[in-house]
């Protein structure tokens, strides 16, 4: 069987297992880990698109995530929108904000983009805390109602149980990864990689770097915004902690460990690290110290992540001189 066929089987098997989990256990902790994996995998997948494929280090993902969360929560509670339209509007708003930030800072340099994206994420936190008339300040918007989805065929799906949220986020994560996979394996993805590797060369081949960079930012912001919009209903509250730097650090670690620019590597790292709180049962502070140490070690020892390291080994194997045949 070809490598591609084997990979497709593994993916189908993994999807089947993930789909079946709520049938075997209604244990809330297991489902919570699943929801956390789905949510983080979309965030890290988007970051991988921006950083891993296009080469733009972004700290803004958490801002898009929170903007989506706040927008969806406000649209649903204040204006009575449905969950899906609210989350979609949150995603579109996040994408629009992403375009503004990207357009203004990328005219200068990638460096400016990294700095501006960080400032943007911190600004979101401050605005959420201090613009009390819109966001209700530090208390946030508690008691988000259990959303109801009108499914085709006239059934109404009331999303209230952990298993319902598991399926909702799982379904969206599959959709988001399918979109990311289609982008990175298409001409778009090749152009993005070319920009990352050598921007002047890509430009000389007729690729407009700014357009592809903005596309990557907008798409990752859209996905992060939507997943934020869905996730807050699972939490049933949105407050300024949705902009916490913790999310940024975690998704960065996932991308770095998985290997920037490696679709499956980042997905796998997201799964492992989402389950890790279970293995590392110490306080968040110490976990973040550990993540920081991992980041330092990774930058000193394997800058291209585990995925990149494996790929380098594969290339080294190809290059190894074959034993001379008689």
């Amino acid at each position, binding site marked *: 069987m070809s490598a591609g066929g084997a990979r497709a089987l593994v993916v189908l098997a993994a999807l089947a297992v993930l789909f079946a989990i709520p049938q075997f256990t209604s244990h809330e902790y297991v489902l919570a880990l699943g929801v956390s994996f789905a949510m983080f995998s979309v965030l890290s997948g988007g970051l991988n698109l921006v950083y891993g494929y296009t080469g733009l280090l972004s700290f803004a993902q958490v801002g898009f995530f929170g903007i989506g969360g706040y927008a969806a929560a406000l649209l649903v509670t204040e204006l009575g929108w449905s969950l899906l339209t609210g989350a979609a509007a949150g995603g579109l708003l996040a994408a629009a904000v992403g375009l503004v930030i990207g357009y203004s800072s990328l005219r200068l340099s*990638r*460096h400016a983009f990294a700095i501006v994206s960080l400032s943007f994420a911190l*600004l979101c936190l*401050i605005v959420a805390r201090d613009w009390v008339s819109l966001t209700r300040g530090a208390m946030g918007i508690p008691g988000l109602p259990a959303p109801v989805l009108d499914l085709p065929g006239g059934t109404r799906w009331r999303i209230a149980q952990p298993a319902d949220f598991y399926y909702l986020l799982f379904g969206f994560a599959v959709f988001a990864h399918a979109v990311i996979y289609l982008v990175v394996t298409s001409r778009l993805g090749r152009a993005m990689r070319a920009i990352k590797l050598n921007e002047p060369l890509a430009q000389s081949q007729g690729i407009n770097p700014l357009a592809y960079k903005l596309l990557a930012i907008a798409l990752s912001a859209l996905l992060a915004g939507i997943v934020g919009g869905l996730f807050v209903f699972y939490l049933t509250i949105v407050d300024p902690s949705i902009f916490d730097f913790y999310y940024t650090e975690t998704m*960065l670690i996932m991308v770095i460990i998985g290997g920037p620019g490696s679709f499956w590597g980042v997905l796998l790292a997201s799964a492992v690290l989402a389950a890790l709180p279970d293995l590392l049962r110490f306080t968040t*502070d110490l976990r973040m110290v550990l993540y920081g140490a991992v*980041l330092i070690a990774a930058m000193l020892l394997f*800058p291209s992540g585990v995925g990149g390291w494996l790929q380098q080994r594969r290339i080294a194997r190809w290059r190894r001189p074959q034993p001379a045949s008689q």
Partner: protein
Amino acid sequence: MDLNFYAQLLLNGIVIGVIYALIAMGLSLIFGVLEIVNFAHGEFYMLGAMLAYFLTVNAGLGYWPTVLIVVAVAVCVGYVLYEALLASMRGANFERSILLTLGLSMVLQNGAVFLFTTTPKMVASSLSYSNILLGGLRLSLSRLYALGLGLAAFAALYLILYRTRIGKAMRGVAQSRDAALMVGIDPRAVSRLAVAIGIGLSGLAGAALAPVYAVHPLMGFSFVFKAFAIIIIGGLGNVSGAAIAAVVLGILESLIGGFLPLVMVDALVFVSMIAVLLLRPQGLFGRGVRV
């Protein structure tokens, strides 16, 4: 509204602006010489303030010995930081050095939270309560000292950069690394000194502000947000541009903060950064050197 009120806001703004400048100048110097954006810069400000707190409250040292020790320790930490971590980043890409310093910031910040908890600590010394009156204006002695320390640091940095050989070498490396190498400047010695000065300035800012504000592990985080905006507005790598932008920002913040909610101040910082990027991407005082 009487004039005194404005003058008071102006004075407070200058003090805070000078402290912003200490942090932003160090950040800008490190960027100019090493092309590394030090994401952990705010944490060294926090550690400086923490150390000042322990020296003052636990060890019972006075103001001046505390400041001296904190700055000396910060300079040494800068040397170690360069030798242990940043030196190996030479020639590495920009994102890698950012992620490295981000990792360092996570270790320092969360480590401080774990060790010291997030409870704000007050450095209560006689300084905090004594005021001097300058023709109707009230300035606490701790703020006055902070202002004096900041101005002294400006002067010292200016003298180092423009009146010494190593300072000249530093400016040379910032202008063109290759050309500096060609004329025989050792980039390692220059980079090491730039990091030591940058971290030293951060430590000084922490020690100077410890008696003015409460000390807690997350203090560096909110500060560094402004410092990044300042170095963009002042022109990446432009040290005097960063100083001017910082003082102006401190004054504006104080004046606006007197009338409008705090969120407007933070929004102003961000909006001015975006406006500068759109209208004058090389920074208000950009020096035309490729970043």
